[in-house]
């Protein structure tokens, strides 16, 4: 039974949230906070694979999210929305339910390919120089989209609501909430399966000592390729979801500030801990909402908190341990695989 308790409670939780949202118990604002939380969880766990498990310093995660957001949006707008450049919708709105996951997948795949920009140089270099490459990649993505007039350039891109409306036209339930919850579950599950697999054990091995890992028959280049592409692909998924939650994307919402936010979440939670990254993403989203009345001071308080954290507990909230390592008794009640 304990093998399934966690899975069952997760699905019950998702079901309960959807029902509550449907009945209007959870209002729109709370729903959007929950959805942002989901997106943040996806982002922080995916960056944790590279910055935490693999010990690299990637500071351009926002760029991959941007690629995912734009590709997914272009696909859904192409299919379901009338756009003055991309033309009339290709599919009837009733197809939205099937096309949306495909669009999300396309966005994630495109982001994974964009991850190659970082993955290939990582064969030869690491540390500070790789950090610059990720940073430059972030700027290149944003700058490229700024210059693509066909998708709005610096003005942003919209029309994604058509796909969401199409889905709601079939069955009127809060579809975006459901997609975000399933997306979050899928990403965390995928990452968890990857890092605990035999193949995935190579990732922390690279973090510990790259040369030793290579001697121990870990194909480091292949591992790096997989880790970077997986991480950026999942970030692309987060981007696609994010774009459809807001119904509007702007390249500048994925700039270095976004990347910094994700880094804050990773280091707050602890490097190399998926439950830590999840927990810190939840905490961080709540913190952002609670501190909203502080307006701009919020962005003084949050960095200050992180600096204090670095001074007094540099390993983050969880260190590199999972929740079940810290509280072994919890193992009786759940196992998450």
């Amino acid at each position, binding site marked *: 039974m304990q093998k399934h308790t966690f899975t069952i409670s997760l699905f019950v939780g998702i079901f309960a949230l959807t029902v509550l949202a449907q009945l209007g118990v959870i209002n729109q604002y709370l729903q959007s906070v929950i959805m942002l939380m989901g997106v943040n969880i996806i982002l922080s766990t995916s960056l944790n694979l590279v910055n935490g498990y693999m010990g690299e*310093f990637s*500071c351009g995660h926002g760029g991959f999210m941007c690629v995912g957001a734009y590709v997914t949006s272009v696909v859904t707008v192409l299919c379901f929305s009338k756009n003055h450049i991309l033309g009339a919708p290709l599919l009837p709105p009733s197809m939205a339910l099937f096309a949306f996951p495909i669009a999300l997948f396309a966005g994630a795949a495109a982001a994974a390919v964009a991850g190659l*920009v970082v993955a*290939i*140089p990582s064969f*030869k*270099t690491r540390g*500070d*120089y790789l*950090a*610059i*490459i990720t*940073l*430059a*990649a972030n*700027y*290149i993505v944003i*700058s*490229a989209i*700024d*210059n693509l007039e066909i998708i709005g350039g*610096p003005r942003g891109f919209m029309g994604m609501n058509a796909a969401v409306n199409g889905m709601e036209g079939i069955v009127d339930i809060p579809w975006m909430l459901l997609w975000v919850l399933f997306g979050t579950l899928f990403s965390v599950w995928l990452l968890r399966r990857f890092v605990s697999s035999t193949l995935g054990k190579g990732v922390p091995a690279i973090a510990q000592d790259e*040369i030793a890992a290579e001697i121990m028959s870990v194909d480091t280049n292949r591992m790096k390729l997989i880790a970077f592409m997986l991480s950026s692909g999942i970030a692309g998924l987060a981007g696609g979801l994010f774009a459809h939650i807001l119904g509007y994307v702007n390249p500048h919402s994925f700039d*270095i500030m976004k990347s*910094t936010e994700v*880094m*804050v979440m990773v*280091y707050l939670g602890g490097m190399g801990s998926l439950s830590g990254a999840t927990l810190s993403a939840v905490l961080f989203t709540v913190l952002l909402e609670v501190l909203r009345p502080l*307006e*701009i*001071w919020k*962005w*003084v308080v*949050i*960095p*200050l908190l*992180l*600096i204090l954290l*670095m*001074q007094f507990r*540099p390993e983050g909230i969880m260190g590199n341990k999972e929740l079940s390592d810290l509280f072994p008794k919890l193992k009786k009640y759940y196992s998450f695989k």
Partner: protein
Amino acid sequence: MEFFQHLLNALQFGSFYALIALGYTLVYGVLRLINFAHGDIFMVGAYIAYFVAVLLLGGEGMNGLGLSPGLTLAITVPATMILTSLVGVTLERTMYRPLRRKGADRLYVVITALMAGLILENGNLALLGASRKSFPELMEKVVWTFGGISVTNLKLVVVVAAIAVFVLLEFIVSKTKIGMAMRGISYDKFAIPLMGIPLDTIIVFTFILGSSMAGLAGILFAMSYPILEPYMGALIGWKAFIAAVVGGIGDIRGAIVGGFLLGFIEIGVVAVFPSTLRDLFAFSVLLGILWLKPTGLFGVAKTTKI
């Protein structure tokens, strides 16, 4: 003729990048620390220059001392450099040093630096508001024209300042005792204190040098483009950092070469293509250089001992 005009602009922009890149490279060379707050120290430098200048000159709703612009400039430059270096040293003392004492991983110091930069940016925005400050004119603009190329005295000052700073730093690092100590720390941080060299003093000195250069860049930038806003340091800082890395971070010649290279690339792109493509090309070229030569132009690949 237009070519020379662009060349001059490129030299001016390159000088700003080079001045900031020098600060990055100095701190990195000594501490192996990417001081991500450096771009924001540049911004703070520009603001300090603004306040000092307004205080001395008067205007902008403040009853200043009413000094003449020339005298104001003469006082503003050293005052800003000193005050900005104080900011840099404060960061070192309050944030980096405790971490260094604890022997924390380099990564944590880098994150602290990143966060310190955010605090400087947003703290400034919160304290001073979003209104942009316009910098008073301290130097009468003189335009010289040589056969179709017009040169303002300010542009010349900027380029000369960058080269002078480069020569000074190169001299300090390679010829003086304190420079030798800096190189020593970069070589082996653990053996140096055993040789009777005060580690912390040298590190503070490095921060003073780097931050005062950022302050100087701040004044010159504020004089050339007299609109100040809290986020002005972010993009220029990142670009200067990339310039430092392309030159080979930790190497003073590299910072100068990288800075000017970035200036030439940007102005070259703007001269041919629409100006919105500037960042795209600049970053792509730099990415290409790093792909081909991951240690930067002047960097030396290190071999790891097993």
